[in-house]
């Protein structure tokens, strides 16, 4: 066990955990931030996507010891009032079915749009391909992302 000081959603958190513990479990089990989801544990489904700085990361394979003082953003901290353009687009396009994968989809889409504000269809597909939606809401996810690009 070791003590880590983490900057999560703009707040400082101190946790005393195993250095190899993935951020996913630090968030979910130590800090009760359960918006970040567990789906596969091997970075294949994207449900656990968070931002490390501005970059989308799979938190299930990111050991807490590698985070250092980089800012972490989770779905809970993407916007203060739940009104990030991507969140609004998700509501406008009524994307969710079961909804379990959607916080990961939203975090991945938000990071994509930050680095590439007007992605083409193939760029959207390439960037989102690591995020599985078992309910099959892909058509709406793409529409939602494209609506953000056309609104900005």
């Amino acid at each position, binding site marked *: 066990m070791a003590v880590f000081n983490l900057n999560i959603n703009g707040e400082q958190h101190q946790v005393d955990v195993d250095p190899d513990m993935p951020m996913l479990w630090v968030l979910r089990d130590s800090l009760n931030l359960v918006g970040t989801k567990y789906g596969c544990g091997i970075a294949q489904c994207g449900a656990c996507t968070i931002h490390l700085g501005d970059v989308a990361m799979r938190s299930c394979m990111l050991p807490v010891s590698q985070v250092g003082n980089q800012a972490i953003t989770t779905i809970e901290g993407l916007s203060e009032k739940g009104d990030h353009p991507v969140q609004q687009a998700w509501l406008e396009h009524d994307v969710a079915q079961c909804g379990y994968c959607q916080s990961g989809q939203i975090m991945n889409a938000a990071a994509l749009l930050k680095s590439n504000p007007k992605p083409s269809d193939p760029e959207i597909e390439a960037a989102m391909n690591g995020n599985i939606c078992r309910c099959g809401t892909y*058509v709406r996810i793409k529409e939602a992302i494209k609506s953000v690009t056309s609104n900005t």
Partner: protein
Amino acid sequence: MTLIKTQHNRRSFLKVSAAAGGGMLIGFNWLTSCTSQVKEGIPIPKEWFEINGYIKIGDTGLVTIYSPNPEIGQNVMTSMPLIVAEELDVNWDHVVVEQGALNPDAFKKRQFSGGSLSIMQGWDVLRMAGATGRRMLLEAAAKEWGVAVSDLTVSEGIIKEIKGERTIGYGEIAAKAVDIKVPEEVELKNPKDFKLIGSFKKNVEGPKLVTGKPLFGIDFIREGMLLAMIEHPPAFGMTVKDFNREEIVSMNGIRDAFTIDISVESTRLVATVFPHLIAIVGDSTWHLMKAKKALKANWESISELENSEMHTQRLKRDIEKGEIQESRKDGNPEVAFSKAAKVIERTYTAPFQAHNTLEPMNFFAHVTANKAELIGPTQTPGVLKSNASTLLGIPEENITVDITRIGGGFGRRLYVHYGLEAAAISKKMGAPIKLIYSREDDMTAGIYRTAYRSTYKVGLDENNNIIAYSARGVGFREGAIFPNRFPAGTIENYTATKLKSESNISMGAWRAPRSHFAAGAEQSFLDEVAEAIGKDPIDLQLELFDRAIDNPIGEKNEYEAERYAGVIKLVKEKANWGVETPGIYRGFAAYFCHNTYVAQVLDLIMKEGKPIVNKVWCAVDCGIVVNREGAINIIQGGVVDGIGHAMYSEIKFENGSPTDNNFNTYQLIRHNQSPKEIEVFFVESEIKPTGLGEPGLPPAVGALANALYKVTGKRYYHQPYATAIQDQSTIETTLKG
């Protein structure tokens, strides 16, 4: 004018009382039908009067609807309250929907979110409850003003005098409506006057979902709870003997480790295929995952260790010799086949598949000396409760089961073994615990969709008329044959046989059970038959339906031929079927299951040597469409699911073990493989609504196979199709040719 009764044998289906904090509270049984035909002399079941749905009309006019139905992503938490709000006649913006507390006593057998039945079963009672509220509020206003109810009108929660100036909101009169006698029957709206039903309404939990609120079972936290994981035997046919307990319990963050036994009298919905498991309890999921890696267990074989080759051979044998589960015969197919000028026979297969709900199995349990509290994602809380009672030796009245939002069902959460495992672990620990499956546990201890094998045969006369038809299918749990579905009723000499084979792999219902395979096989076969006799596949099927409309064969045909033909004609028109566009390869399929009719046209294009689904056109007849937004979404999801599983997904077995255990090798459809566009059209109807969770999936399989044939010139008989398409040169050669 449609009237609906609010009581049976003088017992009211509703209870009305003052609401805490002011206003009116209407309680009713959300999940049972109030208009079911009850024969005189048969006592009505007690649970009909159990209260689990509530409408609260607050003194501010805010309406809160408490929905107890399990939400697995089929959108019932939006669509069912919408029905109540329609009849109550309130502004949807003034409605709040909450997940209602469950009283599973009411649902010993009835509560069940499966079979696309929720809307169909709830339709009458939800309308009745809303209409009763509206009527009582109107009566209270009439009494207040000393006028007749007929002098009043209501719209969006505001009551107005027809010939006067006075108006009053529901909120202002709600407290007084509590004293009005519950009417014996109430008038329902004419569907033509619906304002909410049929409109586009967003998912009521959308804002919580996009901000990561804790809604799912896996998110549930109770102060002081411990976490638990299981390790099941590595193969079907094995059980646990012992394990290195001392080493495991000495690990950092581990509280205890032991074996549990959840053997109860096994029913289909328990699915205790591994009744003996190793359980590890600790402080964090990561500690548990590390402990699982350090496990050294001795397993022993208790039955045969099966493999996929063995499964293939058994299905080949049992399609002839298996146990017959259901069959039908019209005319004399044997004689007709013997006289046929030409016989076409084709065999179709599909592999085992896992459900892979993205939220793995999990459950919270807190078991004390004579009480148990169970909370988590289940579609069958009543089944869990009764079995937990048996397992724990605690009377059912001391057990509560509460449902969370469910991160995907597809049939998997009908089976309650993981709830029982959580209960057994909590009992042993004497503490509240939350059990979580790893993805590997979830995928390798599945309640799989069985593998299937079906053979279809037609006999043609010298003029290419279909004179005989035969369908014969086997699966390990059930064959995928529905003897009384189309084309039963359209062909003089007809036979269909559903057979069963045996396996010790655990199997269960998987989205659109059996239909998901039957539709693909049957509709591919009919496409091939149409080509052989020189007809357009849509024309061929419409001709068969004409026969079923004019002069059907047999009496037990399970479909309405007019509605079936209706969706086919609708999709034909919308997709502009028959007009060839260069570079677009089209497939058609139609299917009826779960009381809903769906026809689809699927357009493939070729991109970099790979077939891509460019667009899918869907025509749907589900009766009245309740929430158009949710209805379109779930049909689109069904199409993606159908294409994805037919194209990519497969689980194989070696020595009793599933060969895939995570998404690195088990392929689920992803963004770049999804259709680019899915357009959904509904048949406008005033027929009682039917389900949508399942019927969108099956035809997509057939439409895909038929479109693939157009691209490659090859027919696809064996799922997953992607395996069969591996030879890309075949495709490219065909295109150049």
